Structures are given as C-alpha cells and as structure tokens.
C-alpha cells in the first residue's frame, strides 16, 4: 500500500495553512455581505469543517482504490454527489446553529449555488491531486520492484552458472580420479562415469521443471558417491526416506544445492567425521524434507552457502507464493534446513 501524502511534513503544513486561510476568508466574505461576525465565523467553521472531513475521506479512499484512466468521469460525478450531500447537511446545520439565518433565510438560500460551486471545485481538486499522488507513488514502487526483480534474476543466473561449473568440486574430483588410476583403475573408471552422469544432469535440468523426489534422490546419490570417494571415511550420510515421498513432485535442483551446502558446511566447518542427515516425510499434504549437518557455532558459514539457502527460499516463494516453506534450525552442534513442498497436483 502506498504512503499517504500526509506522511510528508510539508504537505501537512500546506494543507493546514490552506484551510485556515480559507476559513478566515469565508468568514470575512460573509461579514462583508452583511452578516454579524459571530454568525459568519460559526458558518465558516461548520461548512468548511465538513468539507475537510469529506476531503480526508476522499483521499483515504483513493489510497486503497485508485481510479483507472477511463473512470475519471465517474470520479467527477462522485465529487458532485458529495458536494450536493454536503450542501444539504450544511443548510440543515446552519439553520439550527446560526441565529442570523432565522431572521433572514433568503441570505442562506441565495448563497447555496455559490457554496455548491466552490465545494465541488475543491473536492475536484483534491480528487485530482490524490489521484496524481497515488499514481506517482505506485509507479515509483513498480520501478523499485522491477529493479529488484532484475537484480535477483541476474544473481540467480550467476549462481546457476557457478553451480554448474563448481570448479572446486570438479578439479578435486579429477584429482581423485588421477590418484585412483594408478592404484584402483576399476574405481577410477566408475568415478569417471558418476562424474559424467552428475555433470550431464546439472546441464540438462531446467530451473522450473518438476521431477519426482525419487529422481532427485538418484541424482543426489551420484553426487554423494563422488564426495564419499573424495573425503573417504570423514563423510557419512544417514537417509530416512518415507515410501510415500518418492512419487512426490518437486522443482528440480532444489535438494542438491542444500545438500551441497550441508556437506561444505559440515566438512569445512568441523574436523573429524561428519554425518549428513536427510529425512523425508509426507505430513499434512506436504512433502517435508530435512537436511542436517553438524555445525560449530564458532565458525562462520563458508562463503556462498547463504546464497544457496536464499535462492531456495526465493524459488519456493516464486513457485508457491508462500514464505513459510523454508525453516532453519540452528542448535548448539547441528544445523538443520527444513523445506516443505505442497502437493502440486492438488
């Protein structure tokens, strides 16, 4: 929702000065045409006080409901309607409060057309000013949003590139293969195959393509096999996957970056053996997946891991329009990321 023009101090001051001057002006004018001072002042305060209230109401309405380009005629008609209602209310109130009008009712009756014209003019102006204001702030907001979206998509593209290349992972894997060739050529051959399948998978997948959870798991296993060859006994995984979750549809390349984060975080943030946990359940028509890694609270997140998590959050928001799908639990010695995928077919 855009901010009201009243949020600007200068506007508030101008608005108040205008109305004070206008109220004084009308009182002087009425006195000039032969009304006693007390009656002129009461008249001016009542009629203009009501007009201010209507103005505020109009401005507030425009804040929530901005007229389209082809609706300006109806806005004009609404202003006229308000002016007429205001006029009758004024007439009734003035007859009740101002003694002068009891003795000379003609004075009030003859001033009505002038009052109507001025009232309508002011309401029209206010309507125009607020329409312009809110149009302008909406436009400004749109521009900011557009710039944000552009920046985000650029970041995502860069991240995707980095994800695809993963130079550190790639060169270290090649180094492991190089070592295996001399000692265990069979295993070297197997790892070449796994690495190729993994890289092919990264290149083929589209960002918003849906795949089953079991497909994603197969892909993940390739990755884990390679990492286990690299890190040997240090890397252990514990998987606890419910049968029902296997057929669930999820966006591709969602789990793997989180798992990669967990491994990096676990292996470079602590020494000794590292157990990465993966748990999947179907709860309340949602697939609930938890990725767990050990964590040393003294260590910072390795560079890059924050972005992986944010991009997963962002992608789930864009796909499902919900902000509550990713949760991070940090405890004394473990770091858990939980994400939930709604039933896409439902």
């Amino acid at each position, binding site marked *: 929702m855009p901010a009201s023009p009243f949020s600007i101090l200068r506007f508030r001051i101008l608005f108040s000065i205008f109305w004070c001057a206008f109220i004084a002006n009308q009182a002087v004018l009425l006195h000039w045409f032969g009304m006693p001072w007390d009656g002129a002042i009461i008249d001016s305060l009542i009629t203009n006080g009501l007009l201010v209230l209507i103005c505020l109401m109009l401005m507030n309405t425009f804040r929530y409901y901005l007229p389209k380009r082809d609706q300006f005629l109806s806005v004009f008609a609404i202003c006229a309607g308000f002016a007429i209602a205001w006029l009758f209310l004024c007439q009734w109130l003035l007859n009740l409060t101002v003694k002068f009008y009891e003795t000379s009712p003609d004075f009030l009756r003859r001033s009505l057309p002038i009052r109507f014209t001025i009232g309508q003019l002011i309401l029209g102006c206010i309507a125009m000013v607020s329409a312009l204001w809110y149009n302008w702030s909406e436009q400004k907001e749109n521009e900011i949003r557009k710039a944000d979206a552009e920046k985000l998509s650029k970041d995502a593209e860069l991240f995707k590139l980095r994800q695809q290349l993963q130079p550190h992972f790639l060169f270290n894997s090649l*180094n492991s293969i*190089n070592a*295996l060739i001399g000692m265990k050529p069979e295993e070297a051959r197997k790892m070449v195959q796994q690495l190729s399948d993994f890289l092919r998978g990264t290149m083929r997948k589209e960002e918003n393509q849906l795949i089953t959870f079991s497909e994603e798991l197969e892909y993940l296993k390739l990755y884990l096999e390679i990492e286990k060859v690299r890190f040997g006994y*240090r890397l252990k995984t514990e998987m606890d996957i419910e049968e029902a979750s296997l057929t669930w549809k999820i966006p591709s390349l969602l789990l793997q970056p989180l798992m990669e984060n967990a491994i990096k975080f676990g292996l470079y943030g602590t020494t000794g053996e590292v157990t990465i946990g993966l748990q999947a359940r179907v709860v309340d028509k949602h697939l609930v997946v938890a990725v767990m890694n050990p964590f040393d609270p003294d260590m*910072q997140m390795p560079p890059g891991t924050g972005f992986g998590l944010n991009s997963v959050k962002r992608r789930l928001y864009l796909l499902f329009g919900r902000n509550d799908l990713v949760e991070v639990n940090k405890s004394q010695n473990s770091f858990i990321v939980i994400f939930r995928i709604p039933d896409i077919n439902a």
Partner: protein
Amino acid sequence: MRKIIIIDDEPLARLIVKEYLQKHKDLEVVQECNDGFEGVKAIQQHQPDLVFLDIQMPKINGFEMLELIEQPPPVIFATAFDEYAIKAFEAHAIDYLLKPFNQERFDKAIQKWSEQNNTKQSEKNTQDLLETASLSPAQSQRIVVKSGSKIKIIPVHDVLYLEAADDYVKIHTKEGYFLKNKTMSHFEQVLDGLQFVRSHRSYIVNVQQITRIDPYEKDNHVAVLKAGTQIPVSRSGYGKLKEVLGL
C-alpha cells in the same frame, strides 16, 4: 633422508603425492595430516624439510595454518581452485601445483625446491605470501591464533579491541586476550574499516562495542566499551571515529 609432511583433507590427494614421491628416493614422508590442526603439531614435532599443503581445509585453511608456525618450513602449495590463493602465489612468484597435476609437473616443483635451498629468501617470500593471502574475504572474517598448544578461531565480530604490544598485537575478546605476531597496520588493512577503527597509534577498536565517547584531558578522548573498558582516542582517531559513526 629429507623429511616430508603432506597436509590435505582428501585421502586420495595425499595418495597421489605419495605415489609421485616414490621416484624421489631421498625423500621420506614422515606424516600425513587431515587438517591444519594436525599440520601445526606435525610440523613442530618433525621439523620437516618440505611440506605439501592444500589450501581449502576444515576450519582453518593452509595459509592460516602457516601463520601459526613461528618458522614455517619450505612449502609446495597444491590447490584445485582458489582465485585468491592463485593471485597470492602469482604475486610472490611462489611455485604451486594445480590439481590435478602429473608426475612431470610435480618433479619440476621438487627440483625448484631443492635448488632453492637458500631458506632465508623463501622464508621472506612465505611471509609476504601470507600477508597477501590474508586479504581474501574468507580470512578477513576471522582471526586464527594459538593459545598455548590450542588453536583458537576468533570470529571478527567477537573482537572487542586490538592493542599493540611490542612485536605482537593483543586481541581482546570477552574470553580474555590472545597474542598474534602481526603489526597494527596489518590488522588495519585486513579488517573492515567500517567496523574497526584505529582510534590511537596503539589501539584498533570495534565500533559496535562502543557505548559512548568521553572527553579526556585537553585534546584527547576515551571510547567507553560496553564492558566498561576505556580505550584511548587520539585527535586523528577521534576524527576517524566521528566519520564512521556518522556524527
């Protein structure tokens, strides 16, 4: 026999180095290490003639490990991919191996090392290299120190202030202070200038810890930290503090 230590967190990466070393009969691997913590201990214990050192390792990287050793031995670095490390190597013309590497390239590095047995020169090189490497974003987020036989990793936001102490810098934290064999200007360069301000020739203060700045004697001030500690502020330091705090 000359003594070799291999420090790498990937077992196969250590294996390939050992395999390439088989050709060099006069070199003996005395220990293999999984991480920098084991590395520091092993180097102190064996005083090796040469160390093969990976950069990206658990908790502390290869550079941070070397910083903890008073007289670092000659090192051949091996890394898969690390922009900052490679920049640092190139800046100081130090030989490094890019994984994966072959026997030929490995032999060349060994040959270079045995020719360059003028250790004085290589030690100076190592110091310069560590200075450059510490400017990398990962390393400017934490300070690695040795306290007794333990290695302590201090996240920079836990640092209250730094104080000059002869050839060392005292790093004050909530848990007491730690010494690091570096200069004040080193820390001034490495730490984020918006968070750490050199308030005085001998002090660098974490601005997030300051609760107020009081006048002190005629031209000087003191910064009072949350814990109540008073840090001297010189006239030029006061100017810098005012700028950073937006006063």
